[in-house]
């Protein structure tokens, strides 16, 4: 991995959907800074974050490089609800039998650009990874997920899954996704899926027919939709809190 002390631009593949203005004005040291985390063999580490900087800040780039020892587990559950530009980037290298679990939600309006970029490196055999990203966008906002999965030559029995779905609540909002699978081993399972759509009109009508007001119906459906990203949060209370805090950003704006 080469790192130069220059600023990335939207011509760089990994930054193609990024906010141009933010990049142009950004501090190279901040953008090129990586936090690092080592998960010792057999242990579990978890990150739970909600990024929600308001209108007054131009943006945020958070880059995390994780190494997970054999049989270890790294979990990240992240909501991006702020802007104008927010990017969470996670690079994970998995040793034998390690697991990476990722749940991400982007949720925003106006002209926010919100993105997750992951690079999952299955460096050794028997490692597994599961990534679920949900985007809920309105106004002229954009939600992105760029997910690269690399499977090294001897990383047999890798099982990697990646799923992205976006709901655009209004015309003018957009979502981009770019799954990238680079597989050099021959006995692996890699699944990826992507879909971009709107709220289910029939479900909304069904709810209305039972007396549920439109804004409540919308919230329930968004809750159900983003819930997928937090299914893997083991602690029920933590999951509910994550959902609730994420949904609060919907209520502010709709």
């Amino acid at each position, binding site marked *: 991995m080469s790192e130069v002390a220059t600023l990335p631009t939207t011509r760089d593949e990994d930054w193609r959907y990024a906010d141009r203005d933010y990049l142009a004005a950004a501090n190279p040291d901040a953008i090129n800074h990586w936090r690092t985390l080592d998960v010792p063999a057999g242990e579990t580490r978890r990150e739970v974050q909600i990024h929600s900087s308001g209108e007054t800040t131009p943006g945020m780039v958070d880059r995390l490089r994780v190494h997970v020892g054999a049989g270890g587990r790294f979990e990240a559950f992240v909501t991006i609800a702020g802007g104008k530009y927010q990017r969470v980037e996670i690079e994970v290298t998995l040793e034998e039998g390690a697991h990476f679990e990722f749940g991400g939600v982007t949720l925003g309006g106006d002209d926010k650009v919100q993105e997750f970029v992951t690079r999952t490196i299955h460096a050794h055999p028997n490692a597994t990874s599961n990534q679920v990203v949900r985007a809920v966008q309105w106004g002229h906002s954009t939600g992105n997920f760029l997910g690269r999965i690399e499977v090294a030559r001897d990383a047999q029995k890798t099982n990697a899954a990646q799923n992205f779905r976006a709901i655009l609540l209004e015309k003018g909002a957009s979502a981009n996704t770019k799954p990238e699978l680079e597989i050099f081993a021959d006995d692996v399972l890699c699944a990826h899926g992507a879909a971009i759509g709107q709220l289910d009109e029939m479900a909304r009508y069904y*709810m209305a027919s039972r*007396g549920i007001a439109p804004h409540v119906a919308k919230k*329930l*459906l968004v809750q*159900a939709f983003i819930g997928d990203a937090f299914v893997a949060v083991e602690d029920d209370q933590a999951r509910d809190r994550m959902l609730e805090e994420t949904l609060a950003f919907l209520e502010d704006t709709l």
Partner: protein
Amino acid sequence: MLKIENLSAEITVADGAKPILKGLSLEVNAGEIHAIMGPNGAGKSTLAYVLGGRPGYEVTGGSVTFNGQDLLEMEPHERAAAGMFLGFQYPVEIPGVSNVQFLREALNSQRKARGEEPLSGGDFLKLAREKAALLKLDMEMLKRHVNVGFSGGEKKRNEMVQMGILDPAFAILDETDSGLDIDALRIVGDGINAIMRDPAKGVLLITHYQRLLDYVQPDFVHILSDGAIVKTGSADLAKQLEAEGYDEVMAA
């Protein structure tokens, strides 16, 4: 209670609008159960959806008053709060939302709209358990996501459980009997009687078959054909239809 006068409506199709209801008039008084029968394509489901305010179903003429209010001026959720219930021919699946949450939101939304206090979690579950038992639907099904993985018969029974919990003043039941086996048909029929047979309530049953009417005796039977009521009679009319067919009866 429900007064439909000269109602015309069209639905949006790929190349414009298609007229379906063509001057339909019907009045249902409190305490009455009316059945609407008719051949495929007559407009039965369109009538249900127009009364339920489904988007894409455009009223082009006539009027509908419900307990003195202009029904067509109300939003779908306002119609529900005013006491109208629409039983769907094809109940909708909502992954990620549990039946219990869905119904509690629905009931409390309606109560709020009527200026009533919301029901507590405990009271709601008690009510839900009681209505599920009435329709012989396993309480476990109510904890699952709305209609997801339900069989056709379970979906229809779930509709009736919802009706029991929401306790509407008026129910429009669109082919609630389709997809039910004989035992389920009796359970649903008994459920409709238990929930809706009341001097203060009204029911509009839309059905293809006479068999539901053995359990839920209608006061009036109407034949809907090409967007209008062409014949009205007693419960015997349904039996006559079953025996002779639409063409024969409408020609008579």
